[in-house]
C-alpha cells in the first residue's frame, strides 16, 4: 500500500469514541461534543502515551511482590504453609496435574509479562514513529486486549479456596498480601491497554510509504 490513507483526522473529521458517529468537529483545538450521544469528542485519546507508560511501569513494579509474596496460607492440624504463585504451579506439576500447572503458568506468569512487554514495544515503536509492521502491531494490540483478563484466574482460584476451606481446625485457607499485588497487576495492565490508542500505530504512516503488505 503506497497511497496516503484517508483517515478521519487528516480529513478534519472525528469519530465518537462512545457511539462511533463521524462528524466534523467545532474546531481543531476544542472538538466539542458528539451530536448523537453528547460524549466529548477527541481526535486521539488524551495523553495516551504518558498514561500508558505510567500504568505499565506501575504494573511492572507490582509484578515483583505479586510473584514473590505468598498468596495463600494453608493451615492443618499439624502444619502451616504458605504458597506463592510459582509455588502453586510447581505443586500442581508435582502432584500430576501438569495441564493445570501449564494453564496457571501461562495465565499468571507469562500473560502479564507478555502484556507488559507488548505494551512497552508498542509505546516505543509509536514514539519512534515506526511505520513498519503496522498490521502486526495492530493485531498484537487486539490479541493483548483479549488475553489480559485470563491472568485473573489465580485470584479467582484463591477466592474459592478461601471461601470453601473453612474446616477449622482440620483445614483452613487464608489469603496473603500477594493476592492484592497480583490483582493490582491485572487491573493495571487492563487499564494500560485501554489507555493506549491503537490509532497512533498508524499515524506515523501519514505521508510516508507503508512498508508492510
Amino acid at each position, binding site marked *: 500500500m503506497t497511497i496516503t*490513507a*484517508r*483517515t*478521519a483526522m487528516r*480529513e478534519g*473529521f*472525528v*469519530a465518537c*469514541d*462512545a*457511539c*462511533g*458517529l*463521524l*462528524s*466534523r468537529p*467545532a474546531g481543531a483545538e476544542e472538538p*466539542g461534543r458528539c*451530536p*448523537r*450521544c*453528547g*460524549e466529548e469528542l477527541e481526535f486521539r485519546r488524551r495523553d495516551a502515551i504518558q498514561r500508558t507508560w505510567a500504568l505499565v511501569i506501575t504494573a511492572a513494579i507490582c509484578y515483583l511482590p505479586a510473584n514473590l509474596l505468598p498468596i495463600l496460607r494453608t493451615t492443618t492440624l499439624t502444619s502451616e504453609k504458605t504458597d506463592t504463585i510459582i509455588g*502453586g504451579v510447581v*505443586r*500442581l506439576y508435582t502432584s500430576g496435574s501438569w495441564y*493445570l500447572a501449564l*494453564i*496457571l503458568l501461562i495465565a499468571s506468569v507469562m500473560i502479564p509479562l507478555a502484556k507488559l512487554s507488548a505494551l512497552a514495544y508498542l509505546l516505543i515503536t509509536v514514539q519512534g514513529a515506526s511505520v513498519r509492521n*503496522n498490521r502486526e502491531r*495492530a493485531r498484537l494490540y487486539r490479541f493483548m486486549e483479549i488475553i489480559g*483478563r*485470563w491472568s*485473573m*484466574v*489465580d*485470584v*479467582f*482460584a484463591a*477466592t*474459592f*479456596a*478461601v*471461601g*470453601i*476451606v*473453612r*474446616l477449622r481446625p*482440620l*483445614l483452613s485457607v487464608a*489469603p496473603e498480601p500477594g*493476592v*492484592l499485588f497480583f*490483582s493490582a497487576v491485572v*487491573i493495571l495492565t487492563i487499564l494500560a491497554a485501554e489507555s493506549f490508542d*491503537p*490509532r497512533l*500505530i*498508524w*499515524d506515523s504512516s501519514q505521508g510516508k510509504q507503508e512498508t508492510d503488505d
Partner: protein
Amino acid sequence: MEFFSTDIVACPDCDLLQRIPALSSGGAACCPRCGRKLATCNPGSLERTMALAVAAAIAFLITNLEPLMGLSLSGREASTTIAGGVRQMWVQGERITALLIALFAVIAPAMQIGFVLAILLTVRRPPAPRWVGALLRWVEIAGSWSMVEVMMLGILVSLVKLAAIATVVPGVGIFAAVGLILLLAAMSSSFDPREAWSRVRWVNGEGPQRTRPPAGADAEEARR
C-alpha cells in the same frame, strides 16, 4: 455541526475513513487496513439477543444463588457460593480483592445482562430516549470487566487443588455457570450496538435519521 450518514465510519483502531457496504445476512465488514471488524449484518438481532439475555439472566441467578462446590473431610462438610468466597476474602482482610472479585464475577455480568435487556426493551419503538445511549456505553464497559469464564477456570483450578486433600463435589452453581458463560458469549455476539445506536434519539434533537447524503467523503469500501 456537520455529520454523516452512519454508513460512513472511521475505523476505531486505525481511523481510516470508509463506507460500510450493504452486507448480506450473516456477513461482516472489516477494515481493509487493520482488519478490525466494523459491522455485522445480523437480521433479527434484537429479538434473538432478547431471548439470550433473558436466558442469561436466569442462569446468572442460579449461578449466584446455588453452591458452586462442596467439600468434605473427615465427616465435616463445607460449601460455597460466589458471595461466600467474596465474604471470606473480605472477612480475612483482603477487602480490595473481595471487591474486585464481586465486581468481575457478579456486578459486571449483572450490569451487562440488565442493561442489554433495558436497551432492547426501549429500542423496540424508536426513537429511544437519550439515556439509552448512556446504557449502551455502560454495556461495553461492563462487558470488558465481566469475567465469568475466567472465574470458571479459577474454580476448576481450586477444585483440582483441593481434590488432593479432601473430597470435592461440584455444585449446581457450577453447571449454571457453564450455561451462563455460553449464553453471555452468544448474547454479546448477537447484540448489534450499531443497530441499537441508530434507534436512539440524538442529543441535538436531529436524529435518528436513517439516510442522509454523505458530504463528499469518498470512503473505501470495506472488504470481507
